[in-house]
């Protein structure tokens, strides 16, 4: 247990100290990289909720990310640029879509579940790429970041801390939910669906809610990203993006507290490091991914923290 607490404290410290270090070393670029990593970590935390703890492999989560991003971009370019409102709207719209997809998918399992989530993501991709009002293939650009009363979001350091705070909040909420009665049912259903049903749990209903919550938070990550980069593009919704999220999850360690953060960092670092070394970095990434999965440990979190990651 103590190792876990130390790891958590150190990670939190590193994340909080980063912009200070970056500014002092005159490398503001690091703040920008870190902001993206933290947003990714948020999306992976949401994904872990259903994949790591719930055992539901979704290849469609990128669609919720894109929906969140487009909601913000659309609201913003239509003249509404209140960040809290836009982000809340993004969460709401993503939740709505997730609820719909979830209602159809959670009754299935295994390959069918993967396929339906995948198909849904494809639908979202083609629709947003095809609708002129959403910018088509080029996506929707925002002229300026949304604003929040009292907080200067245009300042990259401030934006980073806002995003970090949101990540911390959701990691906390997620961990509480996992340990609470709700999460216990979801985890039980992953280990033995038959048993959960035989005890009297309407497993579909719990899974549906988990899926909806997961989709909603993924949408929030997309919203934060859109405001950050001031753009929403269709390729945010491809299944390869969903695949990337899964890769981050597994690199970091599924069903762990720090896994999503470690995974986002590892993926980001790997990408940057490998691109420098070879044009064909995807090959190395693929090999690393395979090795990590086959090794069967709980990713980086398992390696660093041990069995109670």
């Amino acid at each position, binding site marked *: 247990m103590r190792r876990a607490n130390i790891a958590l404290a150190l990670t939190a410290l590193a994340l909080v100290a980063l912009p200070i270090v970056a500014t002092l070393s005159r490398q503001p670029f690091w703040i920008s990289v870190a902001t993206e990593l933290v947003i990714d970590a948020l999306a992976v935390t949401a994904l872990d909720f259903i994949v790591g703890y719930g055992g539901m492999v979704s290849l469609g989560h990128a669609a919720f990310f894109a929906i969140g991003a487009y909601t913000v971009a659309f609201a913003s370019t239509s003249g509404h640029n209140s960040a809290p409102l836009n982000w809340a709207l993004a969460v709401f719209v993503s939740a709505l879509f997730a609820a719909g997809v979830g209602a159809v998918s959670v009754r299935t399992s295994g390959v069918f579940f993967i396929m339906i989530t995948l198909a849904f993501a494809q639908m979202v991709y083609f629709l947003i790429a095809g609708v002129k009002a959403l910018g088509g293939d080029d996506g929707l650009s925002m002229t300026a970041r949304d604003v929040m009363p009292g907080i200067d979001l245009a300042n990259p350091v401030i934006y980073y801390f806002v995003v970090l705070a949101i990540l911390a909040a959701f990691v906390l909420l997620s961990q509480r939910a996992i340990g609470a009665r*709700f999460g*216990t049912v979801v985890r039980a259903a992953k280990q033995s669906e038959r048993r959960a049903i035989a*005890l009297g749990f309407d497993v579909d209903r719990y899974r549906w809610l988990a899926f909806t919550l997961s989709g909603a938070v993924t949408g929030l990550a997309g919203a934060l990203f859109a405001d950050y980069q001031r753009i929403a593009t269709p390729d945010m919704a491809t299944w390869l993006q969903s695949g990337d999220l899964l890769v981050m999850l597994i690199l970091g360690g599924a069903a762990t507290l720090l896994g999503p953060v470690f995974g986002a960092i590892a993926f980001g670092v790997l990408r940057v490091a490998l691109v420098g070394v070879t044009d064909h970095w995807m090959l190395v990434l693929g090999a690393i991914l395979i090795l990590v999965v086959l090794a069967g440990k709980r990713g980086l979190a398992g390696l660093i923290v041990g069995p109670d990651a």
Partner: protein
Amino acid sequence: MPEIALATRNIWKSYGALHVTSDVSLEIAERELHAVIGPNGAGKTTLLAQLGGELRPDRGTIEFGGRDITRIRAFARARLGIARTFQITTLCADFTAEDNVALALQARERHSFRFWRSARHEPALREPARALLARVGLEARAGIASRVLSHGEHRQLEIAVALALEPRVLLLDEPLAGAGVDESANLIALLGSLKGTMTIVLVEHDVDAVEALADRVSVLDGGRVIATGTFAQVRDDTGVQRAYLGGGDG
């Protein structure tokens, strides 16, 4: 005339041309301990699965306390008061023995949509869970992950979990399967202590256990009931003897 707790009326279950359940009509009285025996492949587990709601019969109805529950799904039947154990271990492997029982206790409430308070530390769940584990003799293993427990301990835990639901009907699927001599004796004693407190349907191979525990016995062969009665009546039935000597193992 005792009330009927659970009944099947002419149920059939077929896979293509294979009739796994053939026109089975059973009446199980309130608080009776009714054993179902038969050679391998006779369809005992399939019958139990239909009683529990995992499978739906192709024809016929199932009644619970006089009410037709044929169309009611498995999870809803559990909420009505029908609990079952499984032949293959279906406990939550990563949860401890206590977690597994606490989960069952949690299931009894209307819903589990609580997101903040840690279920692990709720005394309302933990204390009764430990009491139930003590009842089946597992209190020393409360904190051990289920995947580490021995086969016999799994059997005990399954019963604790089923009892946690405070069921009206308990469906037991070969609770003694794979248990050693001592474990069997303990389990038989445990089941004996439950006898008469609730309706029990016991699917078993162990003839001694059946003789010791059952009020009545039904014999299944090839999907149909070939005899029903007390243990002595059924033992002396020529059809039953033929079924056991003819092709299955007793």
